[in-house]
């Protein structure tokens, strides 16, 4: 059994990469492998907002990631620089930047790029979905 980490840079709205990443994550877990961490970078961080309201008959990607994270105890980490630039902020970052509100979904964490490097060094495989 192998340990995976995923790097997700795909725009959740105008590309298919987030869906592919979720499907890949589910499949590797079904096969008994371990998923250590999903690191969101570039436009990938946009999925970490809790304010999405897609049409009722369409998938909510944020909730799909959150479900996976809760059921399988997986770390979902969004890069702080990429996130702040793209309007994804938690309570602390909102205060630090004097913003009126915050939108990070509770299933996600904001952290630094070091978490990606660490995932590379401590996983057997890193797969990127862009």
């Amino acid at each position: 059994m192998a340990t995976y980490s995923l790097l997700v840079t795909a725009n959740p709205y105008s590309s298919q990469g987030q869906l592919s990443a979720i499907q890949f994550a589910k499949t590797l877990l079904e096969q008994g492998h371990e998923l250590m961490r999903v690191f969101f970078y570039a436009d990938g961080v946009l999925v970490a907002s809790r304010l999405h309201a897609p049409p009722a008959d369409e998938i909510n990607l944020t909730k799909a990631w959150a479900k996976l994270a809760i059921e399988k105890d997986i770390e979902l980490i969004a890069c702080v620089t990429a996130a702040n630039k793209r309007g994804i902020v938690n309570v602390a970052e909102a205060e630090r930047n004097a913003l009126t509100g915050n939108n990070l979904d509770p299933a996600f964490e904001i952290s630094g790029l070091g978490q990606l490097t660490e995932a590379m060094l401590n996983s057997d495989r890193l797969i990127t979905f862009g």
Partner: protein
Amino acid sequence: MKSLYIINQPQKLNQALPFISEQDGILLIEDAVVVATYGSVQANHQTLYVLVEDLIARGLKDKVGVEQWNLVDYPQFVELTLQYDKSVSWL
């Protein structure tokens, strides 16, 4: 080391090809799967795979040139990432 190159946009295959070694594998996913349904690829001995779920989504499953392309599903996609030493998403 043997690498699995993952391609997700049609125009990226030709851009990536000069950098892919003979012993590597190439897997088409997402919009790139259309490439497996027309013409032929100037591959240089690499093993060629295409993701069947993405073909079905687009109504293209029966149009793949199967003499050149190996159809794989998500469980096989995961297996490929272990069979090859590393995976490279050429974005």
